[in-house]
């Protein structure tokens, strides 16, 4: 029996990694059940290649008896860093062999990663993991990561539920939807500010975030959306006033390369004074009708406690297909011993 060893992983070792991927628990895009194992692994390998090519990446593997037993890859998050004004990095890949014991290899990799990140001046590490990956969850918690929120991944399959067959509740005649225009940005921004003031996502629930971070993050998402980060935005109006918006993206270049049939509903909000009036449903459906021209499947992530969204999406035929936990670790809390 050979002991484990932690070593840095670079682009040159990708071939080596390729042979081990099928044994590792984490698989990307677990909520898209129509993907084959081969598609997932090819996508993952490409994604890892891209991430390793990132200048800020830190990647480690743990080997046992020559094979890779665990993998950890961390890259800087310039977006979070800019918005929150603290240096953020994301533990983007954290996986272990499915027959590995619970799991010294993961602990060793995380310890190494935390020490290195701290030495580079990273202030906060974030990590999202699938809710069934309990060994990884436990390793994160043992290393001082704290649970910040849980997201449900919802998927709509238009080949199973054709949009034209959808029966919707009657909506007020005063409500209509249209594509957003650049000049809508300030009104949408004001709406987002109101809608997310008392929200409960991970930026709100982390007590170590600087005050006001939650609102700032959502503001910045709206701005980025209007600056081209999303592919289309739908707004809902009642009597000429914007009362909701929904931002959508086509499949990424990597997803397209690997034939992942998907469009993403990324972000949206309803003005609090107009909730419960069918605005969300109208907006979602308008966005889905546009999405249908590029993909059969659509996905969105929503907070586990966002019950109105769970209800509205369920009525429209979206299904829960995944769950992920978000963890944060502030490195000022102390390094592993």
């Amino acid at each position, binding site marked *: 029996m050979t002991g484990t060893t932690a070593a840095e992983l670079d682009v040159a070792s990708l071939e080596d990694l390729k042979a081990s991927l099928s044994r590792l628990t984490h698989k990307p895009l677990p909520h898209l059940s129509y993907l084959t194992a081969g598609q997932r692994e090819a996508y993952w390998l490409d994604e890892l290649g891209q991430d390793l090519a990132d200048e800020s990446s830190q990647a480690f593997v743990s080997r046992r008896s020559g094979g890779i037993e665990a993998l950890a890859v961390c890259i800087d998050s310039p977006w979070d860093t800019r918005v929150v004004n603290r240096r953020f990095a994301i533990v983007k890949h954290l996986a272990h062999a499915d027959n590995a014991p619970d799991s010294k290899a993961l602990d060793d990799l995380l310890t190494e990663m935390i020490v290195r990140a701290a030495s580079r001046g990273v202030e906060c590490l974030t990590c999202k993991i699938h809710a069934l990956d*309990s060994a990884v969850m436990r390793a994160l*918690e043992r290393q001082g990561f704290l*649970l910040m929120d849980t997201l449900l991944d919802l998927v709509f399959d238009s080949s199973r539920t054709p949009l034209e067959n959808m029966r919707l509740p009657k909506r007020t005649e005063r409500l209509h939807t249209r594509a957003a225009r650049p000049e809508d940005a300030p009104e949408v921004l004001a709406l987002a500010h109101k809608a997310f003031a008392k929200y409960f996502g991970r930026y709100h629930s982390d007590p170590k975030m600087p005050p006001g971070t939650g609102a700032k993050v959502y503001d910045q998402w709206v701005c980025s959306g209007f600056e081209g980060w999303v592919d289309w935005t739908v707004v809902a109006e009642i009597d000429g006033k914007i009362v909701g918006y929904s931002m959508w993206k086509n499949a990424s270049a990597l997803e397209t390369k690997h034939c992942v049939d998907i469009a993403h509903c990324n972000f949206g909000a309803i003005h609090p004074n107009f909730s419960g009036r069918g605005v969300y449903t109208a907006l979602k459906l308008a966005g889905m009708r546009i999405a249908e021209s590029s993909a059969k499947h659509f996905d969105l992530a929503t907070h586990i*406690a966002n*019950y109105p969204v769970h209800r509205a999406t369920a009525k429209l035929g979206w299904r829960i297909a995944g769950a992920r936990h978000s963890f944060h670790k502030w490195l000022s809390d102390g390094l592993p011993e």
Partner: protein
Amino acid sequence: MIARLDSTVLGDLSEALPQFAHLPLAHLHDLSSERRRAYWLDEISKSLAKESSIAFQWVVSGTIKGFIIYNDSPWDSEITGRRIGIVEHVAVAVGEKDSGTEILQELLDELTRSLVDRGTQCVVGKVHSNELPVIHALEQRGFLLMDSLLDFVFDFSRTSLEEINPPKRDKQLQIRHAEPADLSALMTINEKAFTGYFGRYHADPRMPPGTATKVYAEWVRSAFQGWADWILVAEVDGRIVGYGLWRKPLEIEARNSLSVAHYDLAAIDPEFLRRGLWTALMFDGMGIARNYAQYLIGPVHVCNYPVQHTLQKLGWRISGARHSFHKWLG
């Protein structure tokens, strides 16, 4: 400062409850604060009355600012062969600039010391997903996340059974009340259905091997011994291929005029999945439940997507979410 908490301070606690962040019965969205608090106080009183209870309060200037109540869990202990208990209540007053984390940590430390002395081996904590200060205090004190549950609720005042269109039934399917002789058939289904499952007993690597399937087996055995109020079995061509366990409002719920019934557990023989049996069992169970309650409550693992989907199609709504944590002592 920390002090022991017992039934003699229930009056003080009653006054303090409104300042705590915890929302009892959070999944029942239409209840008034007063009813929630009355129920909570009743629950606390029951917890404190148990022989195994260990409880502490954090008092500042004569006001209770936080408390924790623990009890042994004989059922878990017997099945696993490990001494297991549960944090039944933990709550803290939240100020504008104070999440209460330090108070929670002190309470957890004090409790842990007592439990080590008692010989408790594993402590379980279940927390509502929005109670971040409690979640963080648990994690900072060595509790590890084991699973997450979604609380589904069906409200008969919002949706009647007649409005639901369940899929056509398999002609060979019969659903009937279980009889004592059915127990062994249900045990066989359990073995098959829960072997590869992923609940908190499966997720905890420190549970003795085989614990998870044993837990589900004992659950069914207890149901036959009277823990459940009705058990339905599904038969296809005379063979039992599924079951569902249900309970009427519990005594404490009835005492507090909470009109709720509970869907607790169901399983289908894996060979008979995707034939609408689960939906049919659920639909018939709901038909009985409506005689006893306005609301139906059913917790479902966050990754049990087929069950979530079926419940949503039948008109159930996600109304709450909870995380389970375990901490092994020693």
